[in-house]
């Protein structure tokens, strides 16, 4: 991904009138440390995300190794809880979100015909904030008491009682939140102010639209999370009792505030994937996206509805029946705009001249499996069902169908889709397809049985379980190991594509019609759209 053309690699002494606009990158580490180029920063986000994906993935493998058979195999329960907590936090804040910001950095300026992000220096700062946050999270395993073990939701009273690792986690989340807010400000400002002449809002590619809406969501809810964990910090160290029942506070308040952030967060992680899939499917169906305007409105509707459904994460805390009903109906309502999107993708494929290269395989995998995750979400939205299934493996199955086969498959499809544009080389198609099928099989073998385990009553976040759950757990672990191993193919394929391979064409995919395919060569030059394209 670093092989963008260094088209104007001369230095300032050249005396060119517009020398400042024509420089390539410096060499070595300082290029990456000081870079303000959106493509460099996008690459750094994606590499960071990949590293964190493997850190969080290693934790997932350890969790599945422990659950391979009943009884305690390797870890004590406290460490197991730390593993599940940090797996969640690292995958959400370290892997999925930075990956989408990486895509946004690479693609948003190119797709709207801008020269760069609106605030390039803040862009650099947004990325480099991730490093101390990641170090705080990962090194918290080595402090007395071990890493935070309260679940990624950091519910009190556990999170108020545990040791210094929770403080490290709170600080890390504050930093990550600040980074996300700065990134969102940059993205919104870029989209609203930097579009090329003629690039009206309703001409923007769907990926740009989904990120615009996602960035608004982030700005609305990240400060709420920051507020919640600030109050948590004060409860821990400064004698307040926001969430401490002994001091007149209420732990349930934390749940309300946390999930006011947490549910929109789910859409923050899925809307950009919708955008990626909305670009891949038309390209490989060789048809324009069906119902573009309805896609935009559906995305906005999902985002708005995401603010009024947080209570469905806490049906069991004893809310009034009217409250439960409100959150139940609100949640079920989200199926309407989501259904609009799913049917639009299917209609785009209908009678298209489809081919099934790796990005399209991941997009179709996304479509099938995300829909399963959506349906199990509707099941869980029904209050009496949720009261039974709450905190069981059914919930674990549901959100992994949304976040792995949804968000992650979207990311992987996007990586294969734009890799030729980023690197100038074609990836190994056979290996890409192998990666898809192993991921598809491994994922379903790992997570589909969790529906059965949850329905049978197996609780989540436990290192040991009753004998009746043994068979499906063993199968689930085998699937997880296959899925984990398959991801090495992705890394190998990406690295070998960056290093060389068959040259990619400017418009590598027949039906791709956004500006980066129609106006820019592969690989894209280091500086693009210094003169704005005119969009008709």
């Amino acid at each position, binding site marked *: 991904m670093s092989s963008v053309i260094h088209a104007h690699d001369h230095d300032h002494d050249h005396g060119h009138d517009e020398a400042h606009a024509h420089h390539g990158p410096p060499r070595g580490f300082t*290029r990456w440390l000081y870079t303000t180029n959106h493509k460099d920063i996008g690459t750094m986000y994606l590499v960071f995300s990949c590293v964190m994906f493997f850190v969080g993935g290693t934790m997932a493998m350890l969790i599945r190794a422990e659950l391979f058979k009943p009884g305690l195999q390797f870890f004590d329960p406290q460490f197991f809880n730390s593993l599940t907590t940090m797996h969640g936090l690292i995958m959400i804040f370290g892997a999925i979100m930075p990956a989408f910001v990486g895509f946004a950095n690479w693609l948003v300026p190119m797709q709207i015909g801008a020269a760069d992000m*609106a605030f390039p220096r803040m862009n650099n700062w947004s990325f480099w904030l991730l490093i101390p946050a990641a170090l705080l999270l990962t090194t918290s395993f080595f402090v007395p008491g071990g890493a935070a073990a309260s679940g990624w939701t950091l519910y009190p009273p556990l999170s108020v009682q545990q040791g210094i690792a929770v403080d490290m986690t709170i600080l890390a989340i504050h930093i990550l939140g600040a980074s996300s807010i700065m990134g969102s400000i940059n993205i919104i400002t870029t989209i609203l102010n930097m579009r090329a002449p003629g690039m009206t809002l309703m001409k923007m590619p769907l990926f740009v639209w989904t990120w615009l809406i996602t960035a608004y969501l982030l700005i609305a809810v*990240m400060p709420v999370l920051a507020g919640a964990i600030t109050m948590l910090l004060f409860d821990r160290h400064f004698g307040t009792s926001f969430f401490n029942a002994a001091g007149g506070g209420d732990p349930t308040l934390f749940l309300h505030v946390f999930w006011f952030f947490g549910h929109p967060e789910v859409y923050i992680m899925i809307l950009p994937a919708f955008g990626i899939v909305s670009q891949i499917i038309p390209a490989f169906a060789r048809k324009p996206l069906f119902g573009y305007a309805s896609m935009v409105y559906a995305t906005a509707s999902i985002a708005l509805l995401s603010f009024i459904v947080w209570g469905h994460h806490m049906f069991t805390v004893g809310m009034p029946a009217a409250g439960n009903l409100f959150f139940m109906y609100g949640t079920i309502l989200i199926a309407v705009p989501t259904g609009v999107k799913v049917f639009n993708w299917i209609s785009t494929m209908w009678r298209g001249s489809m081919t099934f290269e790796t990005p399209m395989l991941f997009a179709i995998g996304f479509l099938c499996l995300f829909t399963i995750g959506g349906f199990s979400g509707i099941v869980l939205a029904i209050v009496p069902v949720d009261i039974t299934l709450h905190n069981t493996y059914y919930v674990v199955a549901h959100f992994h169908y949304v976040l792995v086969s949804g968000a992650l498959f979207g990311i992987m499809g996007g990586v294969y889709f734009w890799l030729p544009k980023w690197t100038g080389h074609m990836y190994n198609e056979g290996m890409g397809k192998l990666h898809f099928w192993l991921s598809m099989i491994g994922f379903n073998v790992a997570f589909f049985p969790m529906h059965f385990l949850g329905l049978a009553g197996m609780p989540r976040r436990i290192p040991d379980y009753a004998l009746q759950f043994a068979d499906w757990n063993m199968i689930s672990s085998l699937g997880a190991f296959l899925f984990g191993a398959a991801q090495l193919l992705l890394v190998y394929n990406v690295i070998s594509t960056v290093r060389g391979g068959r040259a990619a064409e400017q418009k590598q995919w027949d039906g791709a019609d956004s500006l980066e395919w129609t106006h820019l060569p592969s690989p894209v030059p280091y500086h693009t759209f210094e003169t704005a394209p005119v969009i008709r």
Partner: protein
Amino acid sequence: MRPHTHREPPARTPEQRRRAIATGFALAAVALAFYAAMILHYVAH
């Protein structure tokens, strides 16, 4: 002198730059207001 790694400045006109800065500050103010309002709301209770 260190070479620029982005097009300098990214805004194409002074007006575009002014609007970008105004948008950025407005969004940052919204985020800070949400943060402060939420904590103050619960402190007040």
